[in-house]
């Protein structure tokens, strides 16, 4: 089942399915959010926004509306 990265709970591991078309897509790709990339949501700022995500060993923070562009699926399904 496809989900949005913004809805993923802390600690959960997911893999990227795609990024919705937008001006930010190229930036998100550059930061390493490619199809199949494993992400783990690490923690959220107070008020739940922005969120911090582990991407291949580094910590990326995104605002919720940026995370909404990222389609993900849970890790088990991907495998």
């Amino acid at each position, binding site marked *: 089942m496809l989900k949005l990265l913004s809805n993923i709970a802390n600690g959960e591991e997911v893999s990227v399915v795609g990024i919705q078309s937008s001006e930010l897509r190229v930036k998100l790709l*550059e930061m390493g959010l490619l199809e199949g990339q494993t992400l783990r949501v*690490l*923690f959220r*700022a*107070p008020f739940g926004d922005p969120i911090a995500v582990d991407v291949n060993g580094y910590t990326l923070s995104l605002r919720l509306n940026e995370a909404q562009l990222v389609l993900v699926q849970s890790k088990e399904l991907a495998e």
Partner: protein
Amino acid sequence: MRIALVGNPNTGKSSIFNMLTGLRQHVGNFPGITVDIKQGKFETETQLIELVDLPGTYSIYPRSEDERVVYRSLTEDGNAFYPDAILAVIDASNLERNLLLASQVYDLGLPTVFVLNMNDVAQRRGIKINTDVLRAAFPEAQFVEANPRVGLGKTRILDALNSIGKRSATSAVSIYEMDDIESQEKETISRYVTIRKIVSKAEIRQETSQFKSKWDKILIHPVFGYLIFGAILLIIFQFIYAFANYPMDLIDGLFSSLSFWLSSVLPEGAFTDLITQGIVPGIGGVVIFIPQIALLFFFISILEETGYLARVVFIMDRLMRPLGLNGKSVVPMMSSVACAIPGVMAARTISDRKERLITILIAPLMSCSARIPVYTLLIALVIPKQTIFGFMNVQGLVLLGLYLLGTVMALLIAFVLKLLIKSNEKGFLLLELPEYKAPRWGNIGLVVWEKVRIFVWDAGKIILAISIILWAMANYGPSDRISSARMAAIAQAEKNALNEQETEKLISSVEMENSYIGIMGKSIEPVIKPLGYDWKIGIALITSFAAREVFVGSMATIYAVEDDGGEQIGLTEKLKRETDRNGDKVYTLATGVSLMVFYAFAMMCMATLAVVKRETKSWKWPLIQVGYMGVLAYLGAFIAYQSLI
């Protein structure tokens, strides 16, 4: 030979720059774009190398002002920074993401040296990299390993630069236009496909479990996170006010004795006056702010170096966004408490145009160090020295209140500007939270040095120029108005049997009254009367339009007292006794508070305006800034005066 240093943010790029160039650095400007670029010089065995430290970026395709410089420097052949070769830093702890930019710059076709930064994080994760795989992937580039933290790799980099050769002409791949986003997406994806193949062969990770700091649990905690940030701010400002005074008093004394000494050794005349009353105090007025600015940037760069500042951005972003600001606006606003000039420049890291513009427009509302002498004088004048609840000093509370007034107004104005300024861009905050690490003191020292130099250079030349102009306007008047006023003053001094010193002060006072500035002060009296000001205050207002702190010196001249720097006891006493034509006190609580509010809001700093013009590339925004802040100052002072009178 000119070499461009490129790399992702947080890769130790600036450490490598510092390791190679040491103190031989200066700041240059990209023509047409006003982003300061650090340049440094060093020698290899065979040649002199000019190293250009381009801003850190994740890709050659730009989204912020900083990143645009990288794109243009590397792609526009013939520009002032176009390099002969590229030195690209690759952070070994994040090979995949770093190779995106690395492969892009490799494809430019310029001779390239890759520096593999085997930093502490990479070592802690047990990452090993097979450089043979990388060499095979980028056959025309050289690879060297370095660890600037322990000073490792300098010789290797120098050797590599020495043996730099030409690239084969066919190896260049053309890159896309800055705004061709669709092609950029395709390129990024295809590059990553290649990069992943390389990384899977090149990288050996011994330990897969990620090291995640327990610090984040507390530093971004909904309650403790903000409390800790607040406490850190409090400690920093306490520290600055406790310790900056000593060097400031020293500088003040030094420059007044220099003026005094010069006036005693130089022949009397207009030229000597220009030096002793215009130029020397002008330079002194710039230098005196260095201790505060240096201290504040010392602390800010510690926060930045350790990785904490990124967490501040992270926890503040949600709070700042409804106001049209960005989490990253926190740094410009903090810097502006020292001086708005580095504050305005710090806004460059904000990639969203509107959020950056709003940050720039409100930065001068934060109470900068130049307002402190003004506040100190006015507080001593109208606020009683007493304590409430047994321990709280009222004067101290008023000072704190003025800082809060500036900050709250800055946030309010940001909100209004958010509604007024239109933008099609959607703000974004893609931010890497770097791992916590111990600060590198060498880097911090260089940051402080650079910020001080920017202040002295950018603000200094304008403050100096204006103080010379003001000196002239205060010393010359239409026809022989000044000389006849002087005669009258001498006659009056004789009649009242004043001693030599008193006579001299009286003369300089009437001279100022009859100079161009004095005439201007008198002519604006009707406008400032509703604020509770007389023409003498008018003079002080006009003189401090260029730089606020001049207010104190002007008041001292107008009231014919010695400006004794720090304490101003003489001036305060004199002002307290000052009465108007009806015998009422001039400096009442209402007038004093009105003046404080005026100085809190008014845009009285030419140097900041010049920098805002530079940063926004038009006069439109600095003029809007002068306008809205002027209205705020006038209305605020009016309300303060009328409600207290």
